[in-house]
C-alpha cells in the first residue's frame, strides 16, 4: 500500500462537479415532478442501517457492503439499496396508514468496489415501490411508469425486457428431476451463460424429451415479441403454471394498450440472483450505456421476510447510467458578473439586486481579487465592470 496522497478519494468514490451536479439535479427535478404527478410520495431513509436487518435482507452481496460498528458494538451498513429500507418503513409503519401505498425515492446508495475502476461505489438511484396490490395492473403500472419516466428524461432509445421468475421456476421444474437441477440451471440463466446451460443439460441424463424441450426453451424463449410464442413450453394441465402464463398474457395486453409493444420484449429465461423476486421482473436497457440502466419486478418474497403478506412491486433506475445515456443538457442560463472596486461597492450591490429580481443569476466580485480577468470572465454571459477605470458595460 502506498501512502494516501491528499487528492485521493476512497476507491470508487466520485466528485460531482458543477456541470454533472446540475444535470443530476435536473434528473431529480424531472423525476420528482413526474412521479408525484402519478401519485407517488417521496420519502427519505437513513444512510446507515443495521447489518442484521437491512444488510442481510438486501440482495446485495455481503462483500459489497460498507460495514461499520456503532458504540454498542452493533454492525451497521451504508445502505446498499433503497428497496429494503423502504420495505422496513412500509411494513412497520406506513402501510398501517395507507394501503395500497405508493412511495418514491431519489437517494445515494453504497456498494464497495474490490479493485477496479469504471464502477462507482456510491451512486444515486431513483425509483418507486408499490405496496399492497398483487394485481397485474400494479405490475403493468411499474413497467409503464419506468418507460414514461425515461421518455420524460429524453431517453427515447430504450428497451424493456420482461420475464417472470415464478413461471421460469415452474417450467424448469417440469423438465427436470429435482430442485438441485433447477437451481443449477437457474444459476446459469442469471448470468445468461447459454453454453453452461446447454452443457449442464447434456450431462444431466434427463432423457431425450426433457433435454430437447430445455434446449428449445433456451433457444426460443429468450427473445419473443408475443407471449403466445411461449405456449409450447406451458403445460395446460399444470394449473399454477397456466395461471402464471395467463398472467403474463394479461400483462402483455395491458402493455399493448399503452402502446408499449414496440419497446417491450419478453424473455422467459430472464431471472435474477435475488431470490425474493417471485413474479414478473424486468430490465431496462438504453443505448449509450454498457450496463442496464434499471430494473424492477415483484418482490413479495422480501415482504415476507419482514412478516408482511401484502405484496410489493417496484423499479429503480441508476442515475449515474441515466446521465451517460441522456442527451447533453446545456445549461446556458444568463449569468451576469459585476466587477466592483471599493468605491462602487454600494452601486454594485444595488445593481445586483435589480438583476436578480429580474431573474438573472448574478455574481458580484471585487475586481482586484481577480488575477486573470480575461480567463475569469469567460464563463459569464454578461460582464459589468463598475470599477473607476472601466465603463459600465463590457
Amino acid at each position, binding site marked *: 500500500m502506498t501512502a494516501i496522497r491528499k487528492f485521493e478519494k476512497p476507491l470508487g468514490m466520485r466528485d460531482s462537479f458543477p456541470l454533472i451536479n446540475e444535470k443530476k439535479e435536473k434528473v431529480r427535478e424531472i423525476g420528482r415532478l413526474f412521479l408525484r404527478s402519478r401519485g407517488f410520495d417521496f420519502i427519505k431513509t437513513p444512510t446507515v442501517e443495521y447489518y442484521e436487518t437491512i444488510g442481510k435482507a438486501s440482495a446485495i452481496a455481503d462483500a459489497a457492503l460498507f460495514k461499520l460498528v456503532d458504540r454498542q458494538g452493533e454492525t451497521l451498513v451504508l445502505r446498499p439499496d433503497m428497496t429494503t429500507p423502504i420495505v422496513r418503513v412500509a411494513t412497520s409503519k406506513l402501510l398501517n396508514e395507507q394501503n395500497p401505498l405508493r412511495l418514491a425515492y431519489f437517494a445515494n446508495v453504497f456498494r464497495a468496489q474490490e479493485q477496479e475502476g469504471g464502477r462507482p461505489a456510491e451512486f444515486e438511484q431513483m425509483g418507486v415501490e408499490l405496496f399492497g396490490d398483487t394485481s397485474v395492473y400494479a405490475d403493468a403500472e411499474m413497467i409503464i411508469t419506468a418507460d414514461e419516466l425515461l421518455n420524460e428524461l429524453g431517453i427515447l*432509445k430504450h428497451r424493456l425486457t420482461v420475464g417472470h421468475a415464478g413461471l421460469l421456476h415452474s417450467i424448469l421444474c417440469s423438465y427436470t428431476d429435482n430442485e438441485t437441477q433447477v437451481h443449477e440451471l437457474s444459476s446459469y440463466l442469471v448470468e445468461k451463460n447459454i453454453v453452461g446451460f446447454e452443457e449442464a443439460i447434456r450431462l444431466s441424463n434427463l432423457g431425450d424429451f426433457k433435454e430437447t424441450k430445455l434446449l428449445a426453451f433456451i433457444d426460443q424463449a429468450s*427473445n419473443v415479441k408475443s407471449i403466445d410464442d411461449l405456449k409450447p413450453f406451458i403445460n395446460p394441465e399444470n394449473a399454477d403454471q397456466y395461471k402464471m402464463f395467463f398472467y403474463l398474457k394479461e400483462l402483455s395486453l395491458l402493455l399493448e394498450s399503452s402502446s408499449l409493444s414496440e419497446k417491450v*420484449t419478453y424473455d422467459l429465461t430472464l431471472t435474477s440472483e435475488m431470490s425474493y423476486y417471485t413474479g414478473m421482473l424486468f430490465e431496462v436497457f438504453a443505448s449509450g*450505456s*454498457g450496463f*442496464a440502466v434499471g430494473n424492477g419486478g415483484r418482490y413479495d418474497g422480501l415482504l415476507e421476510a419482514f412478516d408482511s403478506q401484502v405484496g410489493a412491486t417496484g423499479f429503480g433506475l441508476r442515475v449515474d447510467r441515466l446521465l451517460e445515456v441522456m442527451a447533453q443538457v446545456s445549461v446556458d442560463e444568463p449569468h451576469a458578473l459585476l466587477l466592483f472596486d471599493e468605491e462602487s461597492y454600494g452601486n454594485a450591490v444595488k445593481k445586483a439586486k435589480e438583476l436578480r429580481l429580474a431573474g438573472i443569476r448574478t455574481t458580484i466580485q471585487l475586481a482586484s481579487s481577480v488575477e486573470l480577468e480575461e480567463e475569469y470572465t469567460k464563463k459569464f454571459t454578461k460582464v459589468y465592470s463598475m470599477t473607476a477605470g472601466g465603463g459600465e458595460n463590457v
Partner: protein
Amino acid sequence: MSELTIAMPKGRIFEEAYILLRNAGFQLPEDLDESRKLIVEAPSEKIRFILAKPMDVPVYVEHGVADIGIAGKDVLLEQKRIVHELLDLKISQCYIATAGLPNTSMNDIAPRVATKYPSIAADFYKQKGEQVEIIGLNGSIELAPMIGLADRIVDIVSTGKTLKENGLIEYEKIVDVTSRLIANPVSYRLKNDRIRELVQKLKESME
C-alpha cells in the same frame, strides 16, 4: 443495420476465429492486415474488429465498448465478468491443470501454488479443502517449481509438451477450455437481431 463491434484476441485465436467467421458466410477480406492496427473495419458487413490482448477481451465487452467478443473460458472463469456466454466456438481447445515436479507432494506448512490464474487456482484448492498460498506470475509459470518458488503450478495445458520439456508432470485436470462467443448484456438486447443472426450462422457452419 446497426454496426457491430467485435473484440478479438490478438494472435493465434484471432486467426482461427476469423476463419470461423468467414466460413459462416461473413463477407470479410481474406487477409486482414493484422500487423499493427488495433481497429480493423469490415464495412461490407458493418463490422468493426478491436484487436485486444486475450485477457482484455471480456473487459471491453463488459463495459460495452465492444458488443460481442471472443474469449477463452479460462479468462472468463478467472475474471468472472458480467457478460453473456452465447456459444462455444470449440476452437483453441486446451485445459487447465495443476502440475509440478514428479513424485513431490505439497509443503505441509505453506503449500505454494504459482499461476497466472490466481482466482481459478484459489477456487480449485478451496473446493478440495486445502488452503494454499497463491503466487501470481505473468508467464513462464513452469519455472516456479523448477527453481523452488512453488510446489505446484496451475496453468493451461494444450499438448503437454512444455511441461515435459521442463521435467514437470501433470497432477490434476481442473477444467476444459475452449473459446466462447460472449456478448455485452445491453448489446444483447439492443442489437439482438444482429447477434442472434451471427450466432445462428456460426452454429450452422460449425455443424
